[in-house]
């Protein structure tokens, strides 16, 4: 397993026409699309004036952003600013929370996923998810990875091959090759998280959402996950929430900074955000002055 390159990959030049307004939320990345370099990519997910409420509390305020295909987009910001909420609204996991209510658009390939005719189950088959706390099923390692294939009816062909490929991609195969039948719960925390990543990629989704996938892990396991994320971005679109600035800087192409109150304050190329952020509060946050 090799790390990808080293520093963050630059994708395109930064947006130039930006006002200094603190909460300018309808900033659109599409403005810069024509400026994109050779590896600029299409927008796969687009949020338009997205508001999320929990009961009467508003957790996200008019979020607008465009997430590019086959890149790593990091979501950072202080605790409680709505990063997980945003992530869950992408694959409609918020539907599972009774009090949650979503307004505005979240478009996947241009189609609003909150339209009447969108089946959240079908959506989640295209947008996989890895959670903060590793949550393998109390089943065998094999069945954990095969779970998505089975429930999605993709288990008629070469299940074993698909499971092994997913484990291989998740950099776990070498460690578990001869214990595929033992319980997924017997693995270490870091291995469990990679198992969950394998489970998410086995059915071959287009997007993988990760909510602080390494927050419960030690540095070695964390760096394995980081390498993995960079590799995944060669095939998948990855949206990752992290509390770790260095991690965001290392692995992401784009970074979105959320600040308290559920607002997206700045969204740009990772280099730009970390080297020369427009917003003062973003700079304070990144340099650790608060949050």
């Amino acid at each position, binding site marked *: 397993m090799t790390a990808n390159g080293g520093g963050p990959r630059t994708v395109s030049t930064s947006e130039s026409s930006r006002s200094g307004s603190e909460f300018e939320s309808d900033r659109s990345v599409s403005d810069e699309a024509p400026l994109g370099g050779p590896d600029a990519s299409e927008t796969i997910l687009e949020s338009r004036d997205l508001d999320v409420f929990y009961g009467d509390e508003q957790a996200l305020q008019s979020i607008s952003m465009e997430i590019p295909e086959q890149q790593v987009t990091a979501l950072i910001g202080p605790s409680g600013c709505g990063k997980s909420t945003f992530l869950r609204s992408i694959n409609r996991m918020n539907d599972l929370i009774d009090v949650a209510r979503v307004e505005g658009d979240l478009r996947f390939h241009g189609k609003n996923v909150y339209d009447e005719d969108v089946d959240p189950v079908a959506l989640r*088959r295209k947008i996989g998810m890895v959670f903060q706390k590793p*949550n393998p099923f109390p089943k065998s390692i094999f069945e954990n990875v095969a779970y998505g294939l089975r429930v999605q009816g993709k288990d008629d062909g070469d299940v074993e091959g698909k499971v092994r490929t997913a484990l291989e991609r998740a950099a776990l195969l070498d460690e578990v090759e001869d214990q595929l039948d033992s319980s997924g719960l017997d693995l270490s925390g870091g291995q469990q998280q990679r198992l969950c990543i394998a489970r998410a990629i086995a059915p071959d989704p287009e997007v993988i959402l990760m909510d602080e996938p390494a927050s419960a892990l030690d540095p070695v396991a964390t760096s394995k996950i980081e390498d993995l994320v960079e590799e995944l971005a060669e095939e998948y679109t990855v949206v990752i929430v992290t509390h770790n600035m260095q991690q965001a800087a290392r692995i992401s192409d784009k970074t979105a900074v959320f600040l308290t109150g559920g607002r997206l304050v700045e969204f740009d190329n990772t280099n730009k955000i970390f080297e020369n952020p427009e917003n003062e509060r973003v700079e304070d946050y990144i340099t650790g002055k608060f949050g």
Partner: protein
Amino acid sequence: MSTETDTTDFEFDESAVRRKRRLGKAFLGLCVAATMVGIVALVALLVDVIVEAWGWLTWEFLTYPPSQVVEHYNPANYGDLPTGPGGMYPMIVGSIYLIVMTAVFTLVLGVGAAIYLEEYAPDNTLTRFIEANITNLAGVPSIVYGLLGLAVFVRALQTGQSLIAGALTLTLLILPIVIVSSQESLRAVPDSMRQASYGAGATKWQTIRNVVLPEAIPGIMTGIILALSRAIGETAPILMVGAATTMFAPPQLTDPTGPFGAMPMQIFEWAKLPEDEFQHVAAAGIVVLLTILLLMNAVAIYIRNRYDPRS
């Protein structure tokens, strides 16, 4: 907080602490005493019953139908009986049939209701009202269920005083307990498991079937078996729906509308008889009933340990 040490804060005479500690000890003593009362009473009861039954509980007692004549139960007389020894075979079979049928009904209705209430029903006033009332039903005296069974099954549905009426009545009796305990088992399945399943693109039913139920089944089964072991000892409800007090041939599983009986009925019948020896026969019956009960509880514990996917 000040950095200077205030000497009065560090008094070594901790009389207040000591008083609290003494209070704690007194409370502990009270708890131990309370536990002991329960245990001593239970052991005394058990010893009494076993002593009474000693010598009367034989293999023949388990395999022969009852007799009107008390001498027939005495193992000393087994050699010179024209008809064969007396026992409680038909009632043992009756109880087992009753429990098996009750188990099937309860499994379907209880687990079905629990899944609906826990996983599907919207969290609104109506659902909460229903749940509160199910809990209340668990406290209704069993004789009331007997009356209900008599009115609904025996009379209205014309089942007659039959095995099926008895089983359905017992089902009603334990259904609230089973629903509540199954709901608790379902609720104990961590939400992270459900999320993992939905996140992998599973539908609600797939999630329930593949993730929630396998996790909850040991708890659900334990709850059902414990409820059944309560049902097997119940006398009042089956008395109301017309269980026989004595049966000379076991009920037929192939004919669920036929007459039925159960161990508690026979034990009650024996205990009522004037001859002293019948008290020994009743005690022997109680030992059999208790043994079956303990076996069922043992099975429940085994299932809980064996099928717990986390152990």
